[in-house]
């Protein structure tokens, strides 16, 4: 059998195993091992299994992932999300549908110190949704803003998922993280405008204006001093080349703990809870990295990514059409599979194609994350919709209805990034020059 045929068979078996509910990481290790054994030889495959597993788990560049996750969870445990929402609300409450617009703005700001979509969506479900319900906002719209806001936590650095892409492709992690900043701001703006327009088109979604909050604008700014300080030190440190990403993560996590302790908001059990969840998240992400590496070696041995790249080059189609087709593939997969699984499985296949088309790997990293965001919202498996529905008890179908216009806004943001790659690459390029 030719390596390509083994590769195709391997992918088929992988899909089969995944649908049989074998954990994604385990299925990738199993298929990668057998496939590599068939194509190269069994002794080599078995010998690599031990060393590859160990070296994947001891990659220094991956150590930033638990630190970023920990940082966000510690801040969530210190109730920073509530403050951020109150502060943004102090500026936007007058606006028609302002509470919804504020929810998205607050999610973005919280996302600037947290790498977790779930933490962000949970916080907003607890804080912002009841506030919107108090002013008779439409349930679906309120839940939709909280769910879509969560996606910004992943796009805006710090972001564990952006780091994961950097590790899988060996792109510089610092640049991939910094590359997320402008698309993050752009997406936030588009989502806020969408929320405003939705309320303009359907005034009954936000039937009456909110009351003035008991917080002056000046006090509101002082309430959230921790956000610019932590973001500035950790991401600024990366941008100016003072920190490796791991050091930025450690500094951010340390400052977050300091914030929790100084403001006396973090309890011991809050701290231990954040630590425990960080560790569990780390365990499953690293298992996926190990699976991704072993499966990736098998894929390269099968030559499928190279063949695919060469085939696409012969097609003589405009590059943007190919990229848009890739977006469609990710969008469909997003309805079927978990987003991290898509990232780990698809990146080794698509990345060589993108590089063959002479696009920037940093750009594709940010674009990949943006494409995966839509999957976090889509029925039937949209994780964030489940989170928001679970916390707020708003029926799932209402949440899915509520996020619909925002998925459109995300698609617009993605198309803008496809047509204007500089949106991603400008800041990272400044770093290197």
């Amino acid at each position, binding site marked *: 059998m030719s390596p390509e045929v083994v590769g195709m068979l391997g992918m088929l078996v992988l899909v089969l195993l995944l649908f*049989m*509910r074998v954990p994604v990481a385990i299925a990738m290790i199993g298929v990668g091992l057998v496939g590599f054994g068939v194509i190269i030889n069994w002794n080599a495959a078995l010998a690599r299994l031990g060393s590859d597993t160990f070296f994947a*788990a001891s990659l220094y560049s991956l150590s930033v992932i638990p630190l970023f996750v920990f940082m966000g969870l510690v801040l969530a445990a210190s109730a920073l999300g509530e403050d951020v929402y109150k502060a943004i609300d102090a500026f936007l409450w007058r606006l028609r549908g302002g509470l919804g617009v504020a929810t998205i703005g607050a999610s973005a700001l919280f996302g600037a110190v947290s790498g977790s979509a779930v933490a962000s969506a949970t916080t907003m479900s607890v804080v912002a949704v009841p506030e919107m319900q108090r002013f008779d906002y439409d349930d679906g719209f309120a839940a939709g803003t909280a769910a879509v806001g969560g996606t910004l936590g992943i796009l805006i650095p710090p972001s564990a998922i952006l780091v994961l892409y950097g590790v899988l492709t060996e792109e510089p992690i610092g640049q991939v993280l910094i590359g997320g900043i402008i698309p993050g701001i752009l997406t936030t703006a588009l989502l806020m405008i969408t929320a405003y327009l939705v309320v303009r088109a359907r005034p009954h979604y936000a039937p009456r204006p909110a009351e003035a909050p008991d917080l002056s604008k000046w006090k509101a700014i002082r309430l959230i001093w921790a956000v610019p300080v932590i973001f500035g030190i950790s991401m600024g440190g990366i941008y100016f080349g003072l920190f490796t990403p791991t050091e930025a993560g450690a500094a951010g996590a340390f400052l977050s703990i300091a914030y929790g302790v100084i403001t006396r908001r973090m309890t011991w059990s809050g701290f231990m809870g954040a630590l425990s969840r960080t560790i569990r998240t780390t365990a499953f992400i690293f298992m996926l990295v190990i699976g991704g590496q072993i499966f990736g070696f098998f894929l390269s041995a099968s030559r499928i990514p190279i063949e695919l790249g060469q085939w696409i080059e012969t097609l003589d189609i405009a590059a943007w059409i190919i990229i848009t087709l890739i977006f469609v593939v990710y969008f469909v997969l997003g309805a079927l599979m978990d987003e991290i699984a898509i990232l780990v499985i698809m990146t080794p296949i698509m990345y060589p194609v993108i590089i063959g088309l002479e696009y920037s790997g940093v750009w594709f990293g940010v674009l990949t994350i943006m494409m995966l965001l839509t999957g976090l919202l889509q029925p039937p498996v949209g994780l964030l919709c489940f989170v928001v529905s679970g916390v707020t008890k708003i029926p799932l179908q209402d949440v899915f209805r509520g996020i619909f216009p925002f998925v459109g806004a995300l698609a617009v943001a993605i198309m803008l990034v496809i047509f204007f790659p500089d949106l991603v690459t400008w800041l990272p390029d400044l770093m290197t020059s």
Partner: protein
Amino acid sequence: MRLFNRATHYISGFALVAILTMTVVDIVGRNAFRQPFRGTVEMTSMILVVVVFMAVAHSEDMGDHITIDLIYERVGKGAKVFLDIFSDLFTVVVMALVSYRLYQFVIRNQASGAETPVLDFPLWPFVAVAAVGAALYVVSTVMRVVLRLMGEPVNAVDPHAPDAGVEI
């Protein structure tokens, strides 16, 4: 066994705090006193192995590892039991092999006397932690199969998070 896995996951938490502290001491030392903490990078890499492998079994107990439930949620009870046991047994085989190969890698590192580049720490104890962690994963999964056959609930209860799964 589950209590034991929970205990090891706290070792993992302690290891993460160690990485955090070490890195912060290094940053402050380097910038304020021109006194970097020697070997921070390689110690971070090695301790990271402890963080990951002391937590994988607990993560398995909690049902954290990502699966795709699209088909699973649409089949009958009997098929669910079959899929559950199939995926558990597949996991046992793969992770047992991983653990065994890690154990072989321990022996290889002991024989060659491989060390970390700056601090000259022997490599094999860290590989051994990974081998043990993978073995605990296997034991946990075997226990899952037993629980399933006895008709008991398989996922442990998370004391910290009543309503949501892990973070991404």
